[in-house]
Structure formats: structure tokens, C-alpha cells
């Protein structure tokens, strides 16, 4: 018999708002440690602590409620999503610890399947699952705390792009819209399968290809959607022009967006970015896809324009739907122009 778990709005749509969070964080006393290369102060994907000249530890943690009903797939997606932050920093995965919230009254076989999904992804990442912690709770939540290693001279920061850089996106956008359509019984099985396959794909091969090139900035696209993550990357110092026709998206998403299978999180993302983005002749559905919150989304990378074609070609060979989606320009009135 197939086991099913109850899922509400799970995945990265379940995040606390950035504003609320930073108010709390700003009240905490900070200790200055020169070895902490990346910490609270930045909005980066993981924390980086230098241990010697050539090595630094990357730490990250991510967990959320179920976003698909199959426990094994949920575990694997949650793990792929948590592991992604290591890749977004340019690191390699060493080990991971499980974070589990699970109702006492529920069948432990379900938990077993979630953990198996997670374990399989950690192994695929080349890491070892080394332990974890579980709590009895009303709702299921699962994720990982991951430890990785990075060369401190080659950390991929969220910011640092330069004028003229090409912007590459390595996965299709629209998983939030597909999962929303799924929640109300309106998504096709093919669409859900495509979205799940994408979420299960580790950003490992993308990150490994990038090791041979000059990465100026890199982040993974998650709950804040493509445009908010891009705006963060531009850091108020640059603008970007996005060619909407080049952005990889799940085909069916446009139809779902036109039926308004939209998340509250996407609207929050739209409100957050407000007038800083200008759409020039872009369909309403494409606008929504660009604001759509992603779970286990792809990498968004800023690289010198002359290296972009080769990177994309190698990513295609590795089976990734990567595309050059736009370019970094000098600072303009609008932060992002989508055309």
C-alpha cells in the first residue's frame, strides 16, 4: 500500500518573512571572529568559517513541512534543497545531520521512508549522514544540517557581479505554481513529475562545472523567487536586463498561472520588489513565474560574458536545462528590466 502524508503549503513557501526575521536577529549580540568569513551580516546561503589558509567549513541548515505526499520523495527533496546551499557557496558536501519533527501517533514507516529519501540524496552528494535529532511534534517537518568544505579563495558569494556579466540559471522556474495547482487537484501528473524531478536534481554537477570558470556571484533560487534573488545579487550597485524568452520554465506553468494557481508567497515577493522591476511587454503569466517561490531551485550565476556559452554547453551535456537569461548592466533607475 502506498503511504501518504498530509501536506499543506510546504517547501520554501513556509519560510518566515525576511523582514520579521531580521528584526529578531538584529537584537542578538554579535561576536567578531575574523575566521568567520561569511555570517549573519550577509544574506548569503551558508556560513563559512576558515580553518586554515586553504580550507574553510561551510555550514547550512534547512528544513520544512511536506510539499509532496510521497514520504520518500519529500525526504529526498528536503535533502536536495538543504544540500544546495553548500553548492551555492562553491563547496563540497562532507556530512549531514537529520532534523526531524514527527507526530508520535503516526506510522514510523513513513518516517523511515522520509529518512531514506534524505539519506539517498546525501550519498549522491558524496557525503555521509552522521546522525540527527528528532522531536515529537504535531506536524511533520524534515531537513538537514549540512557541513561542507570550500577553498576560502573561491567562495561564491551572493553578491559581486560586474557590469557586462552574463546571468545563467540552471533549473526551470515554476515549481511553486505546479505544486499549488497540485494542492487543489488541478495539476497534471506529467507536470508534477517534471517539477519533482527538477527538485530532486542536486546542484552538484552545476557547481562542479563552475569550478573551471570565473564565478563573480552565485546563489540558489528558492523561496524569494528569481527576481528577488537576482535583485539581492545586484546589491544596489548594478541593474540587470532579463530576456524573458530565454528563461527556462516548465511549459505548463503559463497555463496554470493564467488560472491563478498562485501562492501568497509570490505576491509577497512582488510586493517586496515593487517598482524596482520594469516589465516590457511580458505576459502576466511570465511575471508570476518570475516571482514564483522555488523549492530546491537552480543556481543563478553571474559570470564573464565570454565564458557563459561554454558553461551552458557543458551544463546541457550534464542534462541541465541551463540558459543565459540576461546581463548585468550599470546601475539604472530600475534594478531589473524584464523584456
Amino acid at each position, binding site marked *: 500500500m502506498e503511504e501518504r502524508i498530509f501536506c*499543506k*503549503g510546504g517547501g520554501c513557501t513556509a519560510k518566515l*518573512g*525576511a*523582514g*520579521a526575521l*531580521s*528584526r529578531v536577529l*538584529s537584537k542578538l549580540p554579535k561576536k567578531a571572529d575574523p575566521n568567520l568569513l561569511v555570517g549573519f551580516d550577509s544574506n548569503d546561503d551558508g556560513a563559512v568559517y576558515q580553518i586554515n589558509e586553504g580550507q574553510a567549513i561551510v555550514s547550512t541548515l534547512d528544513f520544512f513541512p511536506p510539499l509532496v505526499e510521497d514520504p520518500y520523495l519529500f525526504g529526498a527533496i528536503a535533502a536536495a534543497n538543504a544540500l544546495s546551499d553548500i553548492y551555492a557557496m562553491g563547496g563540497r558536501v562532507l556530512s549531514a545531520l537529520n532534523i526531524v519533527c514527527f507526530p508520535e501517533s503516526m506510522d514510523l514507516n513513513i518516517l523511515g521512508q522520509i529518512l531514506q529519501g534524505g539519506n539517498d540524496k546525501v550519498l549522491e552528494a558524496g557525503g555521509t549522514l552522521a546522525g540527527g535529532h528528532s522531536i515529537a511534534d504535531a506536524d511533520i517537518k524534515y531537513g538537514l544540517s549540512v557541513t561542507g568544505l570550500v577553498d576560502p579563495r573561491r567562495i561564491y558569494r551572493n553578491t559581486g557581479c560586474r557590469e557586462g556579466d552574463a546571468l545563467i540559471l540552471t533549473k526551470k522556474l515554476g515549481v511553486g505554481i505546479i505544486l*499549488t495547482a497540485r494542492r*487543489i487537484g488541478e495539476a497534471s501528473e506529467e507536470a508534477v513529475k517534471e517539477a519533482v524531478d527538477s527538485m530532486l536534481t542536486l546542484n552538484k554537477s552545476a557547481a562542479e562545472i563552475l569550478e573551471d570558470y570565473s564565478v563573480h556571484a552565485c546563489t540558489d533560487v528558492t523561496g524569494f523567487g528569481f527576481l528577488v534573488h537576482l535583485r539581492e545579487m545586484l546589491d*544596489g550597485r548594478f541593474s540587470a536586463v532579463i530576456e524573458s524568452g530565454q528563461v527556462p520554465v516548465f511549459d505548463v506553468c503559463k497555463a496554470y498561472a*493564467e*488560472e*491563478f*494557481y*498562485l*501562492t*501568497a508567497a509570490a*505576491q*509577497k515577493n*512582488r*510586493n517586496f520588489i*515593487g*517598482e524596482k522591476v520594469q*516589465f516590457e511587454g*511580458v*505576459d*502576466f503569466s511570465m*511575471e508570476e513565474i518570475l516571482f514564483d517561490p522555488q523549492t530546491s531551485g537552480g543556481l543563478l550565476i553571474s559570470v564573464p560574458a565570454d565564458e557563459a556559452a561554454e558553461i551552458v554547453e557543458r551544463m546541457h551535456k550534464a542534462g541541465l536545462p541551463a540558459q543565459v537569461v540576461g546581463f548585468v548592466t550599470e546601475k539604472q533607475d530600475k534594478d531589473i528590466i524584464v523584456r
Partner: protein
Amino acid sequence: MKHFLDARGLSCPLPVVNTKNEIVNMKPGEIVEVLVDNEIAVQNLTKFAKVRSHGVLSEKIAENHYQVVITVGETKGEEGAVEDAAEKLTEEVFDPEECVPCRNKKTAVVLSSNQMGNGAEELGKALMKAFIFALTKQDRLPDVVLLYNSGAFLSCEGSDSLEDLKALEAAGVQISTCGTCLNFYGLTEKLGVGSVTNMYDIVETMYGADQIIRP
């Protein structure tokens, strides 16, 4: 006939999807009144109505209680209407004044010193730097930051808060520093962000604000 939907307690996208399904059985000119319990649902319904060329009005009735009234458009939102409306959407729906009523409140932050609170200078300066940084992280940014007396040092070259104030300015916050004060401290050439203001403007800004924040 007036149609009625209580979508309170439903999470997105159900308020919009249920409204859309209700409209299928309605004629142009008919009205559907939808109740929802959060601002984001109001925005999503407004977005839906504009894209589908329906008329839309919304009102906050009480805490967690909003009413959205949609008048079904001539085309019932079918065919071509979607594309025509897409432009309208970016122009109208996301006007922050329309979307986020709480933003209508005008907030002025007044920095009358380069220190926060009375006490050790070193602490006061550190606190002020942290205050301005925390200000940049608020969901609702102020409309204007006024800087006068030694507060003028904060918006000038060499200030630890210059980047934060620039970030606020980039986010649409007006940064205004007292010209007399810049002059007095010999900072006129060093202003690093925003514009110079005068006492007349300072009085008018403070008078016109619904809320004045003084750290």
C-alpha cells in the same frame, strides 16, 4: 443578483480560484462580494480582477476581515482580455498606496544626533549605527529620514552608516540633511547621500508625518 463568497480561513490560491469558479456562472455587470482574512488575498483577488478586466474595489472591515467587491466585466474575463490587461496590472495593482493601505501612514525618522541615547559616546555611536542598519531591514520603510545637528555627520563621507542610508535611499526613502548644520560642521562638501534641506522643510515634514520615530 449579488453573489457572495466567504473565503476567510482559506489559504491562497483558494480565494481566487473559488471566485473565478463563481464568476463562470455570472453575467456581465453582476457583482460578487468576497470576504477574505488577509491583505495578500486581497491583492491576489485585485490582481485577478484586473487581469480579467473585471471591476474591483476592496475595503478593510476589521482586523483579519476584508471585503473585495468584483463587478463582472463585459468579456467575463475570457479570451484576449488577459493580454490587454497585463499592462494595466503593472501600472495599477502594484501602486503601493493602493495595495498596502498601512503604507499611507507617513513615517518620518528624525536623527538629531550622531549618537543614540545619553551615555558613553562610543556606545551611543554604535547604537546609532545598529539602529540605522535595523531600519533598512524593516518591512515598512519610513518615507523620510531627517538628519540635523550632529545627526548630519551620519549622512556624510566617513560615516559608518553611509551605506545603510544609501540602501534606504535606493529603496525610495527620502534622506534629507539640514543645510545649516552641514555648514556649521564644515561638512557641506562631504554629504554622501540624499539632499540638503532647510528648516521650513523640516517643520513641514514633521508636521505632515503621522508618525515620528526618534531613536
